[in-house]
């Protein structure tokens, strides 16, 4: 198969966005959290791999913004910290 399937396009997968360092700090300040209190996502996660290929290199310690479609709140935004593994 010539074209590889982008997992981010699957209907089960919500939007993933890479947050620039500055914006991540702003978000953490707003939520009064430290980085390690965020939920995690692995560097080897298929979505992170796809994000890496599209939006530039993703490294450990970066924050990923996830925009979910939720049945209770319509659109909900959450953040995950990229960890190793």
């Amino acid at each position, binding site marked *: 198969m010539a074209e*590889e399937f*982008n997992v981010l396009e699957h209907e*089960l997968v919500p939007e993933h*966005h890479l947050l620039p360092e500055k914006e991540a700090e702003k978000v953490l300040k707003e939520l009064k959290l430290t980085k390690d209190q965020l939920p995690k996502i692995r560097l080897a996660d298929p979505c992170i791999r*796809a*994000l890496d*290929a599209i939006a530039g290199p993703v490294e450990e310690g970066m924050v990923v913004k996830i925009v979910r479609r939720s049945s209770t709140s*319509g659109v909900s935004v959450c953040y995950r910290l990229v960890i190793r593994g």
Partner: protein
Amino acid sequence: MAAKSAIEVFLRKGVDDKTSQKLVEGGYTFTKVARASDKVKRDLEKLLGEKKLKQLLEAVKSKERMPRKKKEKPLKKPEFAKKQLPVKVPERTPMEVRLFKILDKSSRVLPHAVVSEIASRLEGVDIPDKLLEKMIDLTIERFETHVVDPNESVGIIAAQSIGEPGTQMTMRTFHYAGVAEMNVTLGLPRLIEIVDARRVPSTPIMEIHLEDAAQDDLEKVREIASNIERTDLIDIADVDTDINTMEVIVKLDRKKMERKNITPEEVLRKLNKAKGVKGLAEMRDANIVIRCDEPSYKKLQRISEDTKLCPIKGVEGIQRAVIRRVGGHFVIYTEGSNLEKVLEIAHVDKKRTSTNSILEIYEALGVEAARNAIINEASRTLEEQGLTVDIRHIMLVSDLMTSDGDVKAIGRHGISGRKSSVLARAAFEITSTHLLRAGITGEVDTLEGVVENIIVGQPVTVGTGAVNLVWAPGGKAEGEK
């Protein structure tokens, strides 16, 4: 590669990369260097130089060994034709934009669903900003009465809300539900399976949607289905063992083969590639004959077994594929599941195809997809039993299970077994083991959770118990100076 492991031995002893490569290329192994006579040492000196030799001999003599490096899987690097992040959230309507602007101005927040509901009711109505503002004020006032209070113990509420209706579930329902004559685990066993994050569900099922070009064409759908369904040799042929001539004879069943669209040549090719039978098969008349290359009955027996299980066609792990018409289109349902491989098949609609194996979704599509899958599967299981559980409870469970970046089970091996507090773990299961181990390693319990505080008889850290009042004596508080 043998040389690679030889190099690794040197590396673990602290010899640098280049030297160890040179050594192995020169035909030296670790033992040779370690037991080197003077002559060998001289040879080595020629190869490496005096300084390096000294280092090498020291390194070889030292008892210390570097820990074996854990092999890390190289990260996949997918390449896409179009470099663009897909957008999945619907765009905001003009009215929604107006409402959000008002909210942003006063830096207040309302969930998207509430805003879009107001917007959809106001569609086409001309309304001044002032009135909108008032409406939002009222909405927020109402909304705040419904918000969960800070320090509310949502976990316990979720556990009760799922647990109580759970008692109403039939213990074992083996239902032939919905999907064409397919056996699906439902009810409590299925719910337990989801929450336990079991690797393979007891009845793995895939729902394979097809691309527009194929989903209405029954012939094509049949072809795709037969390509997905796993066919072993035994499914299309009889396998006999002839002890006199030391041969395994495969009698192909033409009718079955025709139905599955397989040619004898294809079978022969697959057989010659298969493990255990490699290169031994040949055509004779209408049959395929495999000659045993050793005069051993044991080997003959093994060949016969390998032949029977030789995969001819299909995706590993998928036993059966059934075609059903859903909403005017054909959808393939399968018994058995292998998401990663099925997503590689042509004409499969990769965006909608899904499985009920949560671990497989995690591996192929990531944590966020697994989170969604847990929510979907759990709420569907409860719904099928006629139980209504608010989805927020299930979402909480699912969030907890996926918060570490992978799917963790609820229970001894998962979340409850990994609590940081000793007392909380001991209160859950295998009390003495936890306490003993904590005693040996000198664990400290900071009494931050609920269970620990109940055990020691303190107010628990939820609700009003989580708030501490501090009185600052001296009339004015610091902030008021």
